[in-house]
């Protein structure tokens, strides 16, 4: 008869893990009590639930053209400023940029009829007006992240005369080429029925999409790692902030979600220049300003094949496509983004601002 002999180290590790599990509530703050966002800002302009945040400068000399960041419609903007050491905003301010950011807010039932037209020709355009007035400029640079990249692209196509430079960071452009599980679900989604029945796209559906992205790495391994590191203050702090950010996703206005799923994922109208917003056709050929497209090779939310076509579709001759060996969030909130992505973006933008 054979007997299984366990390494005492394995038993020790198991006991350690059990101890951490029991002690975690005493050692760690409640995730919802953790505060996120560290860079100071003023609310420069407000319209309905949308807020335009203007970050306070960190340098005495600033780049002439302001930069407006159009955040995604999924989750909140805090990921751009979640940790001072990994803050996208802080880095840009330190490089001398005058940074504005749109916080789309949390839509409620009254917002269910808001679509691309209201977001692009309303909120985004009004923010541009405000910034031009405040900074006494005719043009502003726009950076859009993820779905915010799509909004920024649509805006730049409709109002090219207002956009100095366009930076598209992991934008959702060519839905048919997207190879993520999100696009697989979106392809067969009866979006009309959802919107007619529940109004806005509820966060619960968004959480479902997140949960099937990397279910075991994100749903199991991440928490095991966390419990093994509860004495590591920096790790715990960063973990809780990200968790809180992930947990705070607002609903998406029904009409916008409908147009999004149909126009981008199901009918793929944007890349074919067949999409209409506010009765005007969106042609990516109108993008004649300098365009910088940032793509993450390991992006499991917006696959590189979905973002890259933007680079080839624009008419601008001053265009750059950069591929980074990181993921969707890693591209904007990591040590890698601080060391590589942001310095490259800053240099490109300064030369054109």
């Amino acid at each position: 008869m054979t007997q299984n002999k366990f390494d005492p180290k394995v038993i020790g590790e198991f006991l350690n893990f059990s101890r951490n599990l029991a002690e975690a509530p005493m050692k760690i703050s409640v995730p919802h009590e953790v505060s996120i966002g560290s860079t100071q800002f003023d609310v420069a302009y407000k319209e309905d639930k949308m807020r335009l945040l203007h970050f306070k400068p960190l340098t005495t000399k600033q780049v002439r053209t302001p930069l407006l960041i159009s955040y995604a419609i999924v989750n909140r903007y805090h990921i751009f400023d979640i940790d001072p050491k990994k803050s996208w905003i802080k880095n840009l301010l330190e490089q001398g940029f005058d940074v504005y950011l749109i916080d789309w807010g949390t839509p409620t039932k009254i917002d269910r009829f808001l679509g691309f037209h209201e977001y692009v020709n309303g909120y985004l355009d009004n923010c541009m007006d405000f910034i031009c007035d405040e900074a006494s400029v005719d043009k502003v640079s726009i950076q859009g992240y993820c779905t915010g990249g799509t909004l920024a692209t649509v805006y730049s196509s409709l109002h090219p005369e207002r956009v100095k430079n366009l930076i598209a960071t992991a934008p959702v452009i060519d839905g048919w080429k997207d190879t993520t599980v999100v696009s697989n679900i979106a392809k067969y989604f009866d979006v009309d029925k959802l919107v007619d029945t529940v109004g806005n796209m509820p966060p619960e559906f968004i959480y479902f999409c997140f949960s099937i992205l990397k279910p075991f790495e994100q749903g199991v391994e991440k928490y095991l790692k966390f419990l093994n590191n509860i004495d590591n203050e920096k790790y715990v702090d960063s973990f809780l902030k990200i968790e809180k950010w992930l947990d705070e996703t607002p609903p998406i206005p029904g009409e916008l979600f409908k147009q999004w799923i149909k126009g981008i994922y199901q009918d793929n109208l944007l890349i074919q220049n067949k999409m209409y917003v506010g009765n005007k056709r969106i042609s990516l050929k109108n993008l004649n300003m300098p365009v910088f497209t940032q793509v993450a090779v390991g992006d499991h939310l917006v696959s590189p094949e979905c973002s890259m076509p933007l680079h080839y579709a624009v008419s601008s001759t001053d265009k750059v496509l950069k591929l980074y060996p990181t993921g969707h969030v890693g591209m904007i909130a990591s040590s890698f983004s601080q060391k590589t992505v942001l310095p490259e973006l800053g240099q490109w933008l300064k030369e054109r601002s």
Partner: protein
Amino acid sequence: MENESNITDYYKKTAMFWSDMIAMMSSKPTTLSAVGPLRTLSSNMKKITNELTEANKEIVGFNNFLIEYYKQLADTWSVAQKDVASKVSKLSPNEEGTEAYKRIWIDIFENNFTGLFDSKKFSENYNKLISKELDLLKRWNIITDVMLKSANLPTKQEMDEIYEELHTLKNRISELESFKKNAKKNDTE
């Protein structure tokens, strides 16, 4: 399946018959003593019964897709577990072996489940499941609307109409503001 449908139809017809009978009865001699509200109640009961019997059909459909959903998850789990078992049999029960086991387990499960979520069969079934859930929700909304109406409160449909009206008004105001702004700009130029 046909038998199930016959039974549902039978219950639906029976329910409709009696609620119609009650509605008719309440409208005649009982009207004298029942005044308004009881008559409304009987008519509402008819609508609610109708929605509940229709919802039964949808629950059957919902259950079928839900079973398929869990079957897909269970099948994938079972295949992944077999794959793990075939790969970890030679690992030794020490610290390195445990680490390697964890890594293999997570990688294999991740690959198998991502494969499932990426498949057409998963997406089709999942979306049919959601669609049935929404059908049920629609029935619930109608029942709630009946009750709201009887309490003299605005229904979901009426609220949606108000939201749409407000939305149109806001857009018209925005257009006027933009027109005014452009006119002012042209005047200054």
